[in-house]
């Protein structure tokens, strides 16, 4: 029975999910299949302030409503964040050496895209963009706490695991192709609107880098790099009173870099601009020629200190995870994990998953109901659910880590949907 449970457990783990990452430790396999092939798709968004209604309408170019925008106001803090992670992955894993001595090895190959948007912004910056400068009249709207990273990369990953004495070590180098890149960092700045709106003054400092602007296709290669993922799993038993053994895994994902090519454009921003309207010594002197002479055509040049073309090195946002998994009883499988994504605006993420078998264990096909709870990341609390269907041949998983955001998109944030499919060859 335990073995059956273990097999089922191991079959399912390939499709386990954490915050929105695909743990490479899940490639470890101890079933009798020779090859597993599958696909994994996941899209996640969260923010402490941007609600789902605004997100969906902006993404679909419908235009968020005035009320949707206003609903964000009570949630604004001095420092806010928003993040998006999207991935589409094809994978195939295979046994290399099994049942020989006490060493088990397997490998895998995986091709996947990794899309990330990570933003940090102050209260004033969001108020300016979302609501306009009218409500900030008479104040300096600070835009110094502003950071934005948009990045898409394509990875070709090769992995190798070795298990000995129930400890597993895995390593997976990747070739990284950089597709799209935009990075904006503010080093200071503000917009001042006078109380009646008769004058504007702006200062800005920072930089903005962007990959080849003439590149039109989404998967155009505009950079190249490398990354390394690795993990180590050991036995650890948290729930000692049950008959099952837990496992503790430490994993690092996507530790690497991309060198964006020489067509990468960087604007160095350091300037100011003042605008008080078209000026005439007397209202009756105002005419077309005065208006043409004073048109504010030089706003951009006032802020840009210099423009550079050239390669740019970017460290990839990588994650560090610590995960504990244990079959709690014959029907319940538990996962706890702590994850931190570096070089992003995400806070530490603490998650718990429960996979509960809904049908009898004697059945060859397991139907699992999954529950997800989380704290941190780009928002505070996440609650989700999903379903898995797994048998000897096929594994299917569908779910969302964030139901709250879908129940009331006008007020709540957070969106996650994941879909996984796997087929085993014996």
């Amino acid at each position: 029975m335990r073995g059956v449970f273990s097999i089922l457990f191991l079959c399912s783990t390939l499709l386990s999910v954490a915050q929105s990452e695909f743990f490479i430790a899940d490639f470890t396999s101890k079933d009798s299949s020779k090859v597993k092939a599958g696909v994994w798709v996941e899209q996640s968004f969260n923010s402490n302030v941007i609600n789902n209604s605004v997100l969906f309408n902006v993404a679909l170019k419908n235009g968020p409503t005035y009320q949707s925008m206003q609903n964000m106001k009570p949630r604004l803090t001095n420092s806010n964040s928003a993040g998006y992670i999207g991935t589409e992955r094809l994978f195939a894993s295979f046994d290399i050496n099994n049942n020989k001595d006490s060493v088990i090895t397997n490998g895998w190959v995986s091709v996947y895209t990794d899309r990330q948007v990570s933003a940090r912004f102050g209260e004033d910056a969001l108020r300016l963009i979302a609501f306009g400068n009218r409500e900030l009249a008479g104040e300096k709207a600070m835009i110094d706490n502003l950071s934005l990273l948009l990045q898409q990369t394509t990875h070709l990953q090769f992995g190798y695991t070795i298990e000995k004495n129930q400890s597993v070590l895995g390593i997976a180098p990747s070739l990284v192709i950089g597709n799209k890149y935009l990075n904006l960092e503010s080093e200071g700045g503000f917009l001042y609107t006078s109380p009646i709106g008769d004058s504007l003054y702006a200062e800005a400092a920072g930089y903005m880098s962007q990959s080849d602007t003439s590149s039109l296709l989404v998967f155009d290669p505009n950079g190249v790099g490398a990354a390394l993922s690795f993990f180590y799993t050991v036995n650890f038993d948290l729930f000692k009173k049950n008959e099952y053994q837990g496992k503790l895994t430490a994993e690092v994902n996507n530790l690497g870099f991309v060198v964006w090519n020489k067509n990468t454009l960087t604007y160095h921003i350091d300037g100011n601009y003042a605008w008080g309207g078209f000026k005439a010594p007397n209202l009756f002197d105002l005419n077309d020629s005065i208006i043409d002479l004073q048109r504010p055509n030089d706003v951009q040049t006032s802020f840009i200190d210099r423009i550079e073309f050239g390669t740019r090195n970017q460290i990839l946002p990588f994650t560090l995870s610590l995960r504990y998994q244990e079959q709690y009883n014959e029907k319940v499988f538990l996962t706890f994990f702590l994850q931190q994504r570096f070089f992003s605006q995400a806070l530490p993420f603490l998650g718990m998953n429960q996979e509960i078998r809904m049908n009898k264990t004697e059945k060859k096909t397991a139907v699992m109901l999954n529950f997800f709870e989380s704290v941190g990341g780009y928002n505070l609390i996440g609650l989700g659910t999903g379903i898995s269907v797994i048998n000897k041949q096929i594994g299917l998983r569908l779910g969302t880590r964030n139901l709250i955001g879908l129940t009331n998109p006008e007020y709540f944030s957070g969106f996650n949907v994941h879909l996984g499919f796997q087929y085993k060859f014996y």
Partner: protein
Amino acid sequence: MFKGLKSIFLVVCLLILIGSCKKRKEGWNIDALIPVIDSKLDLQHIFEDDLVKADENQLLNLVYENEILNLKLADDFQIPDTTITQDNPGPSFNLVWDKKNPLISDTNESKFEITNANLTEARIASGKIKFKVSSTITEPTIITYNLSSAFKDGKQLIITKNAPAGSPSNPAIIEDEIDLSGYLLDLRGKDKNDYNTISYYFTVRFADELLPDTTYIYNQDDVVSIVNSFEAIQPEFVKGVFLTTTEKPDESASDFDAFSQITSGSLEVKKASFAFNFENYIGVDLQGQVNALTAINTKTGKSQKLTGDFLTQSLNLSRAKEDYSLYQIPIIPGTAEYKLDESNSNITDFIQLMPDQVNYDLDFTLNPLGNISGGNDFLFADYGIKAFLNMRIPLNIKANNLQLVDTVDFDLGEADEGTELIEGGYMRVHAENYYPFEAKIQIYTLNAQGVIIDSLMESNSVIDAGIPVNGKVVSPTKSVVSAPINPAKTDLLYQAERAIVKLTFNTVESDFQDIYSYYTSKVDVVGDVKYRLIIK
């Protein structure tokens, strides 16, 4: 043209035209405050150029100078069309004439029938002499006509013509026309002691003194007739003795456009002054009489006669002097000024009518004392008697719904992409006003047929008055007027081809208010709009 009102309209149109508000799905609306115009509004610029000026106490005055009379008397000193005919018949007997001698040689005079003057000299601007000679002399002759009174560039007018042989039944006819422009006519006659008189010298000689014979049988059948016609003689300058006459201008009304932009309402003034300035460009003494001066407001139909000492006085104007060292006009006019103010006339009533026309009844007597110049009276045709009405009104006023109106043309052209993203809101006109009167603004747009299709400003858009302290406004009053923007109004704006701009002024205090030159109204125009922000 009321350029002030036109500019106000351009300002508002500039602001409102950006509200071409096609609904866009993408993006979202933000509330934006956008500075549009930073400027000032001065009373000096509302009225026509230089109509408002500051005096030494910094008080503004409405200063208006209007020429109400430009009386030229050249028509009264015309040289009338005159035809002089002279027949020269031969003797009643056969006279053997030596052809070496002129057959006829005669000096004659003729007097022009010029009324009102005994002219001794006239410089001709235009006109002609038509000259016709008929001859029955049976041999070719040379006819010489010398108008010894006429000189041009120092040369006398001499015409020499060859006449063919004629006969009593078929006389030889010679005709010619001479342009007299530029000629100086000496009208003193041949002995230089007459007036209005020209003299001329006429000779007939044989063309061939030898053939067919050296002599000619000259008798009564040989008649040479000469006809001189002076036609359309227009003098440029005349001199002589101008007889004592009384002249009355043909025109009796003059436009008065100081208040042309004011269409309604009332204006009360405490003080006003008129100065009547006369300039006499004629070389005669003049005595004038203003019999009546009436202000007329043709819009209201009201009129007001001016009363005052001025109207019972004889106005004496000294004669002009010739001075050919002067560059443009060789005349030093005689001048006189007569002043009226609120103490010696009903000038304030006259002004408060806000006339657009002044009717006058004037007489001028030339040389009231007769010939005291010794025959040196003169007149240039283009110059006569001018009268100016110079008005100065210190702007110490009360205004009651005083309305200034002007109509302006405009063409907004096509809306650009940026303006289409503005979906509503207002254009706010923030005013800081020193002037001690409030101003209500409204702008009406008209379509091609001249029908009013929209009003731009909110109703009761009023710029508040400055509050005087001890007669002076030291701190401006702040107020805001607004022009709403929405898709419907913007569509109407693009349909409009003209606009009527109306400003209505009211002083808010019960006393008369001084208007100082430092008073101004600072104007900041701000777009307070809903803008569709689209991030691409």
